[in-house]
């Protein structure tokens, strides 16, 4: 599913070049549930964003679903991302002026009837049917994250990338969200979760630890 070869992700801070990811090689197979752990600044999010085709690496190759994603043009990469990758973020990043239903529909590649049915089904599965007309400000943090999960799943992507999805949640809601991600994993999708804590380990098939941009 994911093949990373000699990946380096560097950025400049003042006059210093910092290697967030340093010559990393990693394979993640289809259907895996992988957690990426490590202290702050270890390069977890940079790695996730690079896998997610959102951050051009300084060097190396990233293959997702058999495609060298950074060999694609920006437009092709946008289309690839929409069809193959679902994102879940710690801060949810829901659009504040849209309802729960509309926030999920925002991800839709096709704005047709079947997609609407699919959104309703997803909201039902995630226990959000009664909140579909509510705006993000009217939701609890757990509901916000479940809305973000529904949005990530709408286009039925084979890969879900989650950046600290439980970082803003209380233990109970964190458990609910991880259970949902586990359910998604059981449908055959590949899940990559960046996390600080160890609560996702119970659900993961593999744990990866990063330190100074390298596998620890």
């Amino acid at each position, binding site marked *: 599913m994911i093949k990373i070869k000699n990946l380096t992700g560097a950025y400049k801070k003042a006059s210093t070049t910092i290697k967030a990811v340093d010559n990393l090689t990693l394979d993640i197979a289809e259907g895996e549930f992988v957690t990426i752990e490590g202290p702050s600044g270890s390069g977890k999010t940079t790695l996730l964003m690079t896998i997610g085709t959102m951050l051009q690496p300084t060097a190396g190759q990233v293959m997702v679903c058999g495609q060298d994603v950074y060999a694609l043009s920006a437009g092709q990469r*946008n289309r690839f991302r929409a069809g193959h990758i679902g994102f879940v973020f710690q801060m949810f990043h829901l659009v504040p002026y849209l309802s729960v239903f509309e926030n999920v529909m925002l991800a839709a590649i096709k704005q047709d009837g079947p997609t609407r049915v699919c959104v309703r089904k997803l909201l039902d599965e995630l226990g959000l049917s009664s909140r579909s007309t509510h705006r993000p400000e009217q939701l609890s943090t757990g509901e916000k994250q479940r809305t973000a999960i529904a949005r990530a799943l709408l286009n039925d992507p084979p890969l879900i990338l989650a950046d600290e999805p439980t970082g803003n949640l209380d233990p109970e809601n964190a458990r609910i969200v991880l259970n949902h991600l586990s359910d998604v994993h059981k449908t055959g999708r590949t899940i990559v979760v960046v996390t600080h804590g160890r609560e996702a380990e119970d659900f993961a098939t593999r744990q990866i630890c990063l330190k100074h941009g390298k596998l620890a």
Partner: protein
Amino acid sequence: MIILKLILKEIIYSKYNFLLSLMAVTAGVALFVAFFATTLASDLETKKIMLDLGQNLRVIPKHTAMDFFYDQGFSDKVMPEAYLANFVNSSSLVYTHLTATLQRKIDWQGSKVIMTGVLPEQYPKNGKKKDMPTTYSIIPGHAYVGHLIAKQNNLKKGDTLDIAGRSLIVETALAKSPNDDRDNIRIFMHLHDAQTILNLPQKINEIKALECLCFVEGSGGDQSLNLEQLARKELATILPDAEVLLSRGIADVRQKQRAMIQKYAAFVIPTLCLVLGLCLAILTLLNVRHRRHEIGIMRALGYGTVRISTLLLGKFVLIGMVAATVGFYAGTALAAHVGPDVFPITAHAIKPNYDLFKKAGVAAVAFSIVSAFLPVMIAISMDPAKTLKND
């Protein structure tokens, strides 16, 4: 989701930002429209005043008794009507309006009446016809009756009056002239009617040219030349039996006034554009900064630059369209409200100019997009990976 729906929902959500942006563009459009509407009225007002004071150029028959001319306002002699054609056909004179008149004071119904025969205005051969003539355009067989004559003879529109056996239909009974008492005892008619009544076929006793600043081609724009002499020399070849009176003073004042308005507009309009554009840019910057996570998540969902730009800039197309409509009517209303105090004679000319509306629409949309463009591009170029990182 349809872009327009997203734009409308965001407008409702950030209504204060939208209203402030709308107000900035609306204020700009309203001030522009008011400025142009009053400029038009100012222009007409000046023309009207010019007419009341006298023309820039007056061509009268040679050997006119000037004491009679200055006393009565017209010449006691006549010259061929063909002089007008000579004037029109001359390629070396610059003017905007040209009329020929034949005037005589007569006794009519026990009163002294100045019979004034006028030809409809002539325009330069290659000149653009003006929107509003500066003199009456009277069709043969009709008359415009001065206030005092109309009052004394109880004449109103549609009545018939008879002068020396010729019947004329009253087209209008004129309002009292505040500037020239002689206008109150005039009967205006078509030149050819006056020629018939006075038995002076093909004769006139004055040609008046407005805005004939007597630029004579070949003068090279050298201001040191005596333009009056040049004009006389030029006219002498085409109007051999005529005398030329040039009102340079009035023309100069007029030119200075125009130059002043143009200078004023050249300062005010760009300043206003800059200030309002800056306001709009700041409001846009605040708005897109607030929406950076939304832009980031759209990137993550696979939205391209064009789609996100359309979403962000589409709002400013709407702002421009609404501001153009509201600003146009507000500006026209403002000009109409202020106009009568400033331009008592031509305030009626201030009315919605739909040609200006179209221009205002295009300009307001373009202005909104240009003002918002830079902040929007800054927002779009932000790295979504950084924006979406855990705050």
